[in-house]
């Protein structure tokens, strides 16, 4: 994600750190308040994860079972996002392709190839940067997994539309109210959507990491009892954790 789709846009430092704006010549209160602020945020993210588990834990299990089915049928996964979310897309790809334990599964992050990303952005437009790659690489039975903290990334939405046209399983992770991705979900374009109920970009990203790790765990749990698909890199031992 970037500032352009930041749900917290417009919230200044004054709101986040009111103590900064209290007049004080003594630095000690800054230290104490900064530490208290971190303690509060550490507590907030634990509660938000619990809330997310209550809200969508069962749907995560259903989605993971469908993703496992796609992999078992020879499907591959393509992941995408912008800014910090692009690093999550890369994390998901490497966690699936090269897990510390468990079965390696074919996954590719669509921001990996800078030549392709800049060529498409320069020649076609940034909104098409993931959709065009899916049009070339994706096929029926594959999985498209996209992340956007606000759900407002046009290139992520376009990618889901292309993936749906091609008969891919579509999985979205968003935050806030889910933006365009909520609309795509309601329109039946997006098969699975998990929206983190927070207005903080940071807390949304942190909760999304948990959601994709739980998806990975459940998928490995499902696949542990099945023979490897043709496209699997190898059938290895049952998993407990990604790298």
């Amino acid at each position, binding site marked *: 994600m970037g500032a352009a789709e930041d749900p917290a846009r417009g919230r200044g430092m004054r709101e*986040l750190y009111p103590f900064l704006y209290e007049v004080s010549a003594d630095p000690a209160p800054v230290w104490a308040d900064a530490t208290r602020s971190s303690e509060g*945020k550490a507590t907030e993210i634990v509660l938000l994860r619990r809330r997310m588990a209550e809200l969508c834990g069962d749907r995560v299990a259903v989605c993971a079972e469908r993703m496992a089915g796609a992999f078992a049928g020879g499907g591959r996964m393509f992941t995408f996002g912008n800014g910090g979310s692009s690093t999550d897309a890369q994390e998901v790809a490497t966690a699936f392709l090269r897990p510390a334990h468990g079965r390696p599964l074919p996954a590719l992050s669509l921001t990996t190839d800078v030549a392709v990303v800049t060529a498409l952005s320069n020649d076609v437009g940034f909104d098409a940067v993931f959709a065009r790659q899916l049009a070339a690489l994706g096929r029926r039975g594959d999985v498209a997994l996209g992340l956007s903290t606000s759900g407002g990334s046009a290139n992520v939405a376009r990618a889901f539309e292309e993936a749906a046209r091609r008969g891919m399983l579509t999985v979205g992770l968003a935050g806030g109210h889910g933006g365009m991705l909520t609309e795509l979900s309601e329109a039946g374009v997006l098969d699975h959507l998990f929206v983190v109920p927070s207005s903080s970009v940071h807390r949304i990203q942190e909760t999304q990491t948990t959601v994709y790790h739980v998806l*990975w765990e459940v998928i490995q749990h499902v696949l542990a009892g099945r023979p490897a698909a043709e496209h699997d890199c190898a059938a290895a031992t049952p998993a407990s954790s990604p790298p």
Partner: protein
Amino acid sequence: MSVASLEQVAREAFARRNTAGGALARDAELITRTARDMAVRFRRGGKLIVFGSGGAGTDAAHVAVEFMHPVIVGKPALPAMALSNDAATVSAVGTDDGIAEVFAHQVRHWADPGDIALGISRDGGCSAVRQGLAAARDLGLLTVALTGAHHADRADHADRAGPMTRADHVIAVASTDPAVVKEIHVTTYHLLWELVHVFLEQGGEALT
């Protein structure tokens, strides 16, 4: 396999995050101290050099974009670079000099003594991150390590960080599950970014 049992797997996986997540609050003061020291370096013109291998390389990229492109409009961009992003250099150094050299080589050719090195290794055992931090320390950089629990049965903070303890600041997540460690690392570097800006805005005595 019934869907009900998969729901149980998912619920248990979510719940496994609670303990390590709650323990982060105990590191709040350490995070404040680390952010203050980072702010001092930024104030003097230093830049942030971040590195990690595998999944931790994606965290390094996340940290760099966090500082270079602030999510809060109006915050200044601060200079940061992720050494794991350059696949050509990483694979060249890795092939010729060994994988343990990939970050140390770049640190030696990019770093100034006033910079900050942030190394990320979820189990503390990554030789490339350890050598990257060692090269940074030799050059006089502020060194910060993000790691996980070294041994689950050791409560001692220094032991948890294992071989990365020689960094100036070691923030060690209380978990040996690399997925959980990653999740807490994301919160940790988000807090570091926020507090660096708090200290830079405060300036003056807070940075002395």
